[in-house]
């Protein structure tokens, strides 16, 4: 359950980093991102990845937390790479779903 939080947030972080690159941005929207958009997406990406580490440590402690974090980064990254390679536009609905799952799981773990 707590793993879903870091999985969802890592997915969002990787998605933002991925879309900050011209090649992958073009696969979803027409044209490459402008400078402002690139920087925003990049900052959001790294911020979300840091947030997923913070969440993993908050929920599972310093012992297992970092292992959870790396595991969820790898799992989320694999899903993202497969999706953006075969169905890039699916990211448009997958990112809100990932955000919702992470949010619900986080609320569920905090209560």
């Amino acid at each position: 359950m707590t793993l879903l939080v870091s999985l969802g947030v890592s997915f969002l972080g990787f998605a933002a980093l991925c879309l900050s690159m011209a090649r992958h941005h073009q696969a979803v929207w027409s044209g490459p991102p402008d400078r402002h958009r690139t920087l925003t997406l990049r900052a959001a990406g790294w911020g979300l990845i840091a947030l997923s580490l913070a969440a993993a440590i908050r929920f599972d402690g310093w012992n297992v937390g970092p292992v959870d974090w790396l595991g969820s980064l790898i799992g989320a990254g694999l899903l993202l790479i497969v999706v953006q390679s075969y169905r890039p536009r699916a990211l448009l609905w997958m990112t809100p779903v990932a955000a919702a799952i992470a949010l619900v799981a986080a609320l569920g773990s905090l209560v």
Partner: protein
Amino acid sequence: MKQGFRQSMAWLHTWSGLVVGWVLFAVFVTGTASYYRAEISRWMQPELKREAQVTPEALAAAADLAVVHLQTHAGAARTWFVTLPTPERPLVELFWRNKPGTPPGHVLLDPQTGAPAAMRATRGGDFFYRFHFELNLAPLWGRWIVGICAMVMLVALVSGVITHRRIFADFFTLRRDKAAQRGWLDAHNVSGVLALPFHLMITYTGVVTLALMYMPWGVTAAYKGDQFAYFAETGQITKARPAAGQPGTLAPVGPMVGRALATIPEPLERLTIVNPRDANSTVVAVFEEPHGLSHEHPQVAFAGTSGDVVEVLSGGLKPAAKTFTTMVGLHEAHFAGAALRVLFFLCGLMGCAMVGSGLVLWTVARLPKAGVATGFGWRLVHALNLGTIAGLPAGIAAYFLANRLLPLDLGARAEREVWVFFGAWLAVALVGLWPAPRRAWRGALALVAALFVAVVIVDVATARALWDDPAWFLGFDAALLALAAGFALVSHKVARFAAPRRMRRVMEAPAAAPQMGRA
């Protein structure tokens, strides 16, 4: 000859990876399967009925029954190992070590009656676990081969990272519309880079688990080669109590089990009884690891003849020993719950994909031009690739099939299952000699998919009546079907492999026609 640093590293990566790749693939596949070792064992013995709970009294009674069996059947043994029943596996497993040169003994008992359990004989998931680091060879040979391959793998990993020019720019890139070589390289890069933390961790900690065997000199110098003295002094096992040379009578172990359970709040896993008929016999109760990364079993040692506690070992490792046990713990991932275990399994699969795609990439990058005959080296690598990448999964499927199909009363049944494993592997490896490489790949992979489907069909047909939890068994079968689907998909992709070129020709033709018409 002057070469850049990166070219040298590329050369090193290519050849270090190729030389050990086949062994590494087998180690990765069986290691990945070992994350579900207990589940595989359970699936392979469908007669087993789980229980809601095992009470401390039942544990003590089971231990007493185990000792009765060992006294009659293994009186002369040096050491007895008694694995106690758990709700997941309500069986008593006995293992005993005889005089050097005599094979060890092994039996499964019913904890209620003390009679041998009515189960089909199989090595279950333990076969994959041991193959992972011993390759089914003599332990010394197997561990050295696997260890050397793992050390070379570290070389391949580091040189691979250096070789990879666009590690961040291509992080998310998986091109499928370009040449075959590009696609394989992307697949190799993605599986390697994305799971790099896992690959580095698993390779390094894998070498570390057997580091004492590869580098014994410290212990040789400080402890005169007595590894047990070293383990005891670092607090990983209880102190050895040498045999007195006088016969002694073992006190009842049931009360010792009770006292051990009262001392340590973890589930009790097994008893080790050293020199059982000596006046200085020792009974060690070994518990499951407490929650945490570190692989350390709390232990309580008893004097065997009196039943008095002589040592309690629970936590308190020094930093060096703690580092070692944490590395072993990370490698084995016993701490991982169901969800994290899935991620570890996924990482293992990505390791298999990285090694497999690297091996295939070697042949794809060296494909001869049309009309030119392939050289001996290319054919050798191709045959070994196919033999390993398709052969090993075929062997695993055949091993599962044998588990369901071999007669239950067959002599040496467990060994025959292993024969079937190697027989199927060898048979598929021979397909690699087929002169048309692509058709060989396609056929072999389709065969693997068919074998996994056959496992599920045979399981449902023959073992359905035995399942104590149908949903669990159907879940395992669904995982096998997913594997089959994966192999079928790859087989299909291999068959369609030339399609882009053919498609281009088809597309060029209609495009050319209207121009002709207009002209």
